[in-house]
């Protein structure tokens, strides 16, 4: 289907089902029950899953295929957000031109940065991209927000004001981001018994876009172009010796992943029409690196899993506090309960980053292939055990002759 082989088609269908049915899947616990805090099926969080998924898929096209570790991808995300908000300010609140412009601008910006940075490789490339991103952050934060030429609105963040031109804004169209009149915030809540499921317009827009870009990523992975990128990763020198210039390929990969990041930034602005410079900071670039590695570098589904995993646990872990812990461990004797809560306390709530850091280190050390590799290993072990149990009776029935 769509030029994919059977395995990829089923992967795409699984991802499509998961994203479309996410409001059900992420809300498994009834409203008001003790487990309801583990529900992740509210629009804001679901949007973040999908947007960061797009960001990580794009990053993976560069890092997973070519092995070039960019530490400055957040800059493209930030640029995308800024261009989208500018579209809101100048044209109208319709999200289509905003998202289109954010992709284009991020593409151009990454062409520029990629052209310069890709002249070096290895750690130098990482540091060059890091330097460019930090420079963009500094520029956006202070320089480009002077009264004469206010492009980014500095610390406050760029947002739409009442006196902005918005030349295409119709009289009847809603006063917040919308898709031809359908506001992004529109949410239909379905109540089924004790459960309630939110269907949010913005989420579905992001989900559809993610499926499209996921499909594109599969095509890139399976194309001759993707093979070239893998060749860059495995041995660039040998590739050059065979008479191939690797630069256009790596540059193309860089620009594509920059456009993915710009798309994610544009969608972020479309969900919430505000763009701040902190989105470009290098910690944000580090986050997408974490997501990709955690999920599984160079795999198709890995980055999406990583993004979902990090965003989900970020949200859940930050919500757990000591009271919740005490209620969980109430069955233990008092002293033991306090001790357990005391031990877990540093890792929850505000300590989520500590947990993330430890988790990340463990993954890099023991599981370089990320969650996907972990899953495969588990599956393999499970299968082998099954095979063993299959073999065992057959061994009995065929005694040695």
């Amino acid at each position, binding site marked *: 289907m769509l030029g994919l082989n059977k395995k990829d088609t089923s992967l795409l269908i699984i991802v499509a089902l998961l994203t479309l049915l996410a409001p059900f899947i992420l809300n498994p616990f009834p409203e008001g029950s003790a487990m309801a805090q583990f529900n992740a099926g509210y629009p804001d969080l679901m949007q973040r899953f999908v947007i960061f998924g797009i960001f990580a898929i794009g990053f993976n096209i560069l890092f997973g295929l070519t*092995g070039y*570790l960019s530490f400055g991808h957040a800059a493209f995300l930030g640029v995308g957000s800024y261009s989208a908000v500018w579209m809101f300010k100048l044209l109208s609140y319709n999200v289509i031109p905003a998202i289109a412009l954010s992709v284009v601008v991020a593409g151009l910006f990454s062409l520029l940065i990629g052209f*310069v940075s890709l*002249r*070096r*490789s*290895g*750690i*130098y490339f*990482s*540091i*060059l991209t*890091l*330097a*460019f991103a*930090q*420079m963009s952050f*500094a*520029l956006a*934060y*202070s*320089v*480009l927000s*002077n009264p004469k030429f206010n492009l980014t609105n500095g610390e406050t963040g760029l947002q739409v004001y009442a006196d902005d031109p918005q030349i295409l804004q119709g009289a009847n169209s809603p006063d917040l981001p919308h898709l031809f009149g359908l506001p992004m915030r529109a949410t239909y809540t379905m109540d089924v018994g004790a459960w309630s499921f939110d269907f949010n317009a913005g989420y579905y827009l992001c989900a559809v876009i993610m499926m499209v870009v996921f499909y594109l990523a599969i095509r890139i992975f399976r194309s001759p172009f993707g093979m070239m990128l893998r060749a860059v990763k495995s041995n660039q020198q040998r590739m050059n010796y065979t008479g191939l210039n690797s630069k256009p390929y790596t540059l193309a990969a860089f620009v594509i992943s920059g456009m993915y990041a710009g798309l994610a930034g544009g969608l972020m602005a479309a969900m919430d029409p505000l763009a701040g410079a902190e989105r470009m900071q*290098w*910690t944000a670039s*580090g986050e997408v*690196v974490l997501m990709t*590695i955690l999920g599984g570098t160079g795999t198709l589904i890995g980055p999406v899993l990583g993004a979902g995993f990090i965003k989900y646990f970020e949200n859940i872990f930050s919500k757990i506090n000591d009271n919740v812990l005490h209620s969980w461990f109430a069955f233990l004797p008092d002293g033991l309960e306090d001790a357990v809560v005391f031990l877990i306390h*540093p890792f929850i709530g505000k*300590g989520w*980053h*500590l947990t*993330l*850091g*430890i988790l*990340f*280190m463990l993954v*890099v*050390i023991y599981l*370089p292939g990320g969650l996907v590799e972990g899953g495969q290993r588990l599956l393999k072990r499970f299968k082998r055990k099954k095979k063993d149990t299959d073999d065992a009776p057959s061994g009995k029935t065929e005694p040695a002759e």
Partner: protein
Amino acid sequence: MDAILLQILNGLDKGSAYALIALGLTLIFGTLGVVNFAHGALFMIGAFCAVTLQKLLNLSFETLDETQKDFLGNPLKVETPYVEYWFGPEVGATIIDWSVPLAILFAIPVMLLVGYVMERGLIKHFYKRPHADQILVTFGLAIVLQEIVKYFFGANPIQTPPPDALSGSVDLGIMVGFDPNAIIYPIWRLVYFGFAVGIIGAVFSFLQFTTFGMVVRAGMADRETVGLLGINIDRRFTIMFGIAAAVAGLAGVMYGPLNPPNYHMGMDFLVLSFVVVVVGGMGSLPGAVLAGFLLGILESFASTTWATTTIPGINQIIIYLVAIIVLLTRPRGLMGRKGVMEE
């Protein structure tokens, strides 16, 4: 003229910090071939050694002073630090006052130990892995260290004042023949600069004039051959890692009075220090020191009102700009050796 001199002086304190961190980074890279993203965290841990010592010295017990009464007529509670109780009020107060310089003594063993444990416990397993993996695992370690410090010390900056005797400013202009008040300079910055020069000198002479240093330099040039000569080069490199950690830590200890330590100061310095290392030339110790001071001074020149009005925001981006230009025109950096990490 005096304005130029003032800007150079202003750049020295940041330049010293850059130089010290970059020196440690280069030592680790040159000896072990590891790109250590956790080096900024070591700088931060050093600064928090000073904070810890200050807190320890200020541990007090409460006594009721019957001679003084508060407005309700209750005896006043007086807090006496244990140090003052043990050594007498005079000596005790001096010890507390000098807590930051004293923290050097406290930080050296702590940092050597931290460096040793880090190398043996984690970095050792990453020599054969690609540089990207080393970056990633040390990046993760940096997050963990930073969060641990945040858990114990909170997110707010903690004041670590310099000793009273060194806390004022001095008019340097008069000494070299300028008008009075032309160049007023905080004493602690001079101390920091002198300290940095001392540490750098110590590290260089250690490498240059001791047998241990000679073996380490030989190992940096050709690790395999040194190993074949029957020298346990790994053990020496581990010690060098500890020394590099101690250099970063000491830079942090003394930096406290210039800028109150907070948990993310390491990350802030790390990015810049990497830029410094790359500008100086990967694997070149003099290059790292030179680039550190140069970029520090350049940053201070870019922060003058003249520069910021000519090109707005130049002070924020100058270092990155320089790094990009250097990397593109002179890929090996200012003093980089041939064949080191060229790819």
